[in-house]
């Protein structure tokens, strides 16, 4: 049931090459450990810990994919715990103890992995509008755009997955989908203004 432990570089390489399984493995590998660790420090329930842990894993994925995270000073576990810790702090959970001192504190003291999870009202509204626009798209367009621009799959990979005739057809379909998305965003934004 347990996945083999991935080394730092392996996990980054695996994620870059589009292996979503690597993200799941990372999530599985340290989840129970994070829950235990989080419970000792925070007055948090299981859902808070789950949210924080998911945010940490997602942040890891997006940082790797955006090229901001190319190598790790500490092991992946420390990175994830530090980000999860910050996420729990942001939710203003009461800290049970501040006397704990371990490698996570050390990493945080050095200013590593200090991501910002705060969002203001304007950002939330904008997010909501973008979500609305995305939801209006057809399922295929939505999936294809995510594969291209979120998972950064190549045109050839997308062509293969969707069994399209050629790379040109795939590119044209993607362009059409992106244009449609932009039109929808414009419509939603205009509706909000008027």
């Amino acid at each position, binding site marked *: 049931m347990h996945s083999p432990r991935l080394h730092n570089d392996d996990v980054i390489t695996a994620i870059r090459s589009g292996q979503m399984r690597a*993200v799941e493995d990372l999530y599985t590998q340290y989840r129970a450990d994070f829950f235990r660790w989080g419970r000792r420090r925070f007055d948090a329930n299981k859902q808070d810990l789950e949210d924080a842990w998911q945010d940490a894993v997602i942040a890891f994925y997006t940082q790797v994919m955006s090229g901001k995270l190319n190598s790790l000073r500490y092991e992946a576990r420390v990175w994830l715990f530090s980000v999860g810790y910050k996420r729990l702090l942001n939710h203003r959970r009461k800290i049970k103890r501040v006397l704990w001192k371990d490698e996570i504190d050390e990493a945080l003291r050095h200013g590593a992995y200090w991501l910002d999870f705060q969002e203001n009202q304007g950002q939330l509204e904008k997010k909501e509008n973008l979500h609305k626009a995305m939801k209006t798209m057809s399922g295929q367009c939505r999936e294809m755009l995510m594969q291209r621009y979120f998972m950064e799959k190549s045109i050839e990979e997308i062509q293969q997955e969707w069994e399209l005739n050629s790379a040109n057809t795939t590119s044209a379909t993607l362009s059409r989908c992106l244009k449609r998305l*932009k039109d929808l*965003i414009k419509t939603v934004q205009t509706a909000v203004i008027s």
Partner: protein
Amino acid sequence: MEEQDDKLIERFYLNDLSEAELAAFHRRMAEDEAFWEAVQLHVDAMEAIRLEGIAMLRKRLTDKGRELDTDMHLPANSWLWWTLGLAAIVIGAWALWNWMRPETPSPPVPMIENGDFAPSLGPDTLPAQTPLIKQTEPVKKTPNHQQVFAAWFKPYKDPSLEPSRRGGATQSPSERFQQLYWDGEYRAALAAFDSLGVSAKNNDNLVFLKANCLLTIGNANAAEALLNNLRDNNRSRFGNQVDWYLALSHLQASHVKEAEALLLRIAADKGSARRSDATRLLRELN
């Protein structure tokens, strides 16, 4: 013109512009308002895709978390179940044997100084056959839910699922999964499902087949979680079968009340393909 601009903006976003192109790009952004707006729109579109991607990833992790929590409630090794079951049988048999064996005369009981109220502990106070008489009383037979499940569960198949064999052509991962499913190789199908791409893993039709595989190998809790999701999504082309299989997964997981409630609903639904099955199964359960 617009198409060219879109390509230019996309290249900018991918950090694919040369220094000269980049300088020209920034100049145009400062001077041309329509171009600036087009860049902003592209940024918004990328943000929309990123947010959707994150939501998809979160859903995937939530499903994984549920799966992990379900596994945690089961003992890690099936031998533990066997040992516990065997121990329960041995203890039960020993207790029954003790209870039913003919009473042997007890050694004389020393009289306790208790006046006239000393209870008689002799063996004659109870009729020897009482336990046997009790045993012959009619007892309402409760159905064994696992047996009922086994009698009713068949992995879903219809002609549309039969894979078209394309000569020597290589199968795509999702075709391989469906082929294994069709061939009844359920464990191998589950392994094949794990290696599918993200969109295929989120394909509710394939997830429905995965749930069937899980039921076949006895992982009812995981199947329940998947079928519950399918029910909420309501996107699978097997939608009219989801409730039936969810009821069966409740039964396999010994969640009999949930199974009965769902079966009642199916039995009451005139349009349900499983209406008569649900009625008959309900009768068997009661």
